């Protein structure tokens, strides 16, 4: 257990961790001078199954389980008086997903939550972020030994919203954490899906899809810390961009520490530029301190969908709008299909196609 970090400063944008982020667009979530509300914004969408509880309790009863370096995460910890706790008891197999919904307001606010998955339990948690909001958030996800959690976070925010979040998973022995991040809405999103392992045989699969249009900034900062033997990670994020000023950032930091023998990791980021004027930054980073590993690799590609491709598809009878949709659907399908929820898949694709149809308006 670590203490709250108190000696941090408002970022200036010159820090390595903040150099890509448009601070001006954050509505002060990062700015210690700007007051934030800490009201509870998370709730269950429907009745929770037996063995699952959602409650709030004093943050002093739930000290952070890891040291955070992110400034907003530290600010959240300092400002939030009551944390939201989703607890899944031991040995529970949940066939149906648990839906969490978000209700934020137009002014800056912060939220801190904890998801606890009991020993040998299996569950899917779907967090639906939508509507208007300026939210700074931390979610701590604790996977007990032998447990398995699919954690899906859907960013379907209004186009004015701002979201700065760290979702940190601590994965116990032989536990399986699957993270799915989908970011479509929001004016500015900066998400840090991060994981660490506390037991051997622990594994993380981290998937992401992001789609940025005109002037949207979508940033995903993945951090995987392999520090115990025989753990595994797979990271695969795909992003598409369309319109002037669309900007995405993908950072993939994977650390294989001394003592993390038998680590098996691979991370991948693919970006597709659908129009001119969009920019995708992709920075994979792999640091290896032990030679005794199973595998470690990374790849990053950025491709363009250009006029020649459009012509090719059209020359086979496919109308232009359908051609763009086809390219996006196909590109995202690999990951969206993993959500295994047709309603959500269709809703997300519809939103993506709506945003696409509005590019340049």
């Amino acid at each position: 257990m670590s203490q709250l970090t108190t000696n941090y400063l408002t970022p200036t944008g010159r820090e390595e961790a903040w150099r890509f982020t448009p601070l001006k667009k954050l509505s002060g979530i990062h700015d210690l001078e700007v007051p934030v509300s800490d009201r509870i914004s998370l709730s269950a969408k429907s009745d929770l199954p037996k063995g699952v509880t959602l409650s709030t309790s004093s943050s002093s009863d739930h000290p952070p389980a890891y040291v955070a370096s992110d400034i907003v995460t530290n600010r959240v910890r300092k400002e939030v008086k009551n944390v939201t706790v989703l607890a899944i008891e031991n040995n529970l197999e949940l066939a149906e997903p648990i839906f969490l919904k978000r209700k934020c307001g137009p002014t800056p606010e912060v939220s801190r939550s904890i998801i606890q998955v009991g020993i040998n339990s299996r569950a899917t948690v779907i967090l639906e972020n939508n509507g208007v909001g300026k939210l700074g958030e931390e979610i701590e996800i604790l996977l007990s030994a032998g447990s398995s959690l699919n954690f899906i976070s859907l960013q379907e925010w209004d186009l004015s919203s701002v979201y700065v979040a760290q979702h940190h998973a601590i994965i116990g022995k032989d536990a399986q954490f699957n993270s799915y991040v989908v970011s479509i809405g929001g004016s500015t999103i900066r998400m840090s899906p991060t994981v660490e392992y506390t037991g051997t045989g622990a594994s993380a699969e981290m998937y992401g899809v992001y789609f940025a249009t005109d002037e949207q900034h979508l940033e995903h900062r993945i951090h995987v810390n392999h520090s115990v033997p025989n753990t595994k990670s797979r990271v695969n994020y795909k992003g598409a961009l369309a319109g002037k000023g669309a900007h995405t950032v993908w950072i993939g930091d994977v650390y294989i520490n001394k003592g993390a023998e038998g680590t098996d990791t691979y991370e991948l980021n693919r970006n597709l530029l659908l129009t001119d004027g969009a920019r995708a930054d992709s920075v994979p980073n792999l640091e290896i301190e032990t030679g005794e590993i199973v595998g470690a690799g990374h790849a990053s590609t950025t491709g363009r969908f250009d006029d020649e491709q459009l012509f090719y598809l059209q020359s086979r009878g496919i109308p232009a709008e359908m051609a763009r949709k086809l390219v996006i659907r196909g590109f995202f399908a690999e990951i969206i299909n993993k959500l295994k929820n047709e309603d959500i898949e269709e809703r997300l694709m519809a939103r993506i196609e709506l945003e696409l149809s509005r590019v340049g308006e």
Partner: protein
Amino acid sequence: MSVLEIKNLQVSVITEAGNKEILRGVDLTVKSGETHAIMGPNGSGKSTLAYSIAGHPKYLITGGSVTLDGNDVLEMSVDERAKAGLFLAMQYPVEVPGVSVSNFLRTAVTAIRGEAPKVRTWVGEVKEAMASLNIDTAFSERNVNEGFSGGEKKRHEILQMELLRPKIAILDETDSGLDVDALRIVSEGVNRVKANSDLGVMLITHYTRILRYIKPDFVHVFANGKIVEEGGPELADKLEEQGYAAYITA
């Protein structure tokens, strides 16, 4: 019975330095069942002709007309031309990231036939067409042309032609880059479509090799942006022996 009629077609390529005249009055009529070979030196404008008919945006039509069964092709959008029954097998097929071959073929066929093919028959239809062109079924899951070898791309062009069943097909150097076996397989594919659907073919090539498999009814010599001589299959042999020198100076 379909007729593609090209009359006095004049085309410039749009470049940053301005428009450059390439086609200087092309006249050509291709009817169902006919095969027209077009042969001519590099840079003479053969691909320009093919792209102009297909509607590539980098070409500007400055004069003349193109009609398919009397309908103005030049007024149609690119996809409308395909729906009207035109097909271009490209000299350099384009890679399309994010779109699998199977998804692409289904979408294209749906667009052109006006309704989605029946799932049951469709899978078989694609498999059979792929098998006859010696294309591994694993290609279905790959992205269109992405990482395909030159010859694989060409075979996929013919696969598309076979499934889209056009009235008139323009094959722009489909034979280039094919090994001997692939050349035979691809030629058989073209002949199969011709036999099944009375396809009209405009075959752009540099070599008489493919003409041994796909017999042309007419051979046209293309030089300096237009057709400068026309004849039967014997003209191809003459070109192979004597080259284009006579036409370039003319």
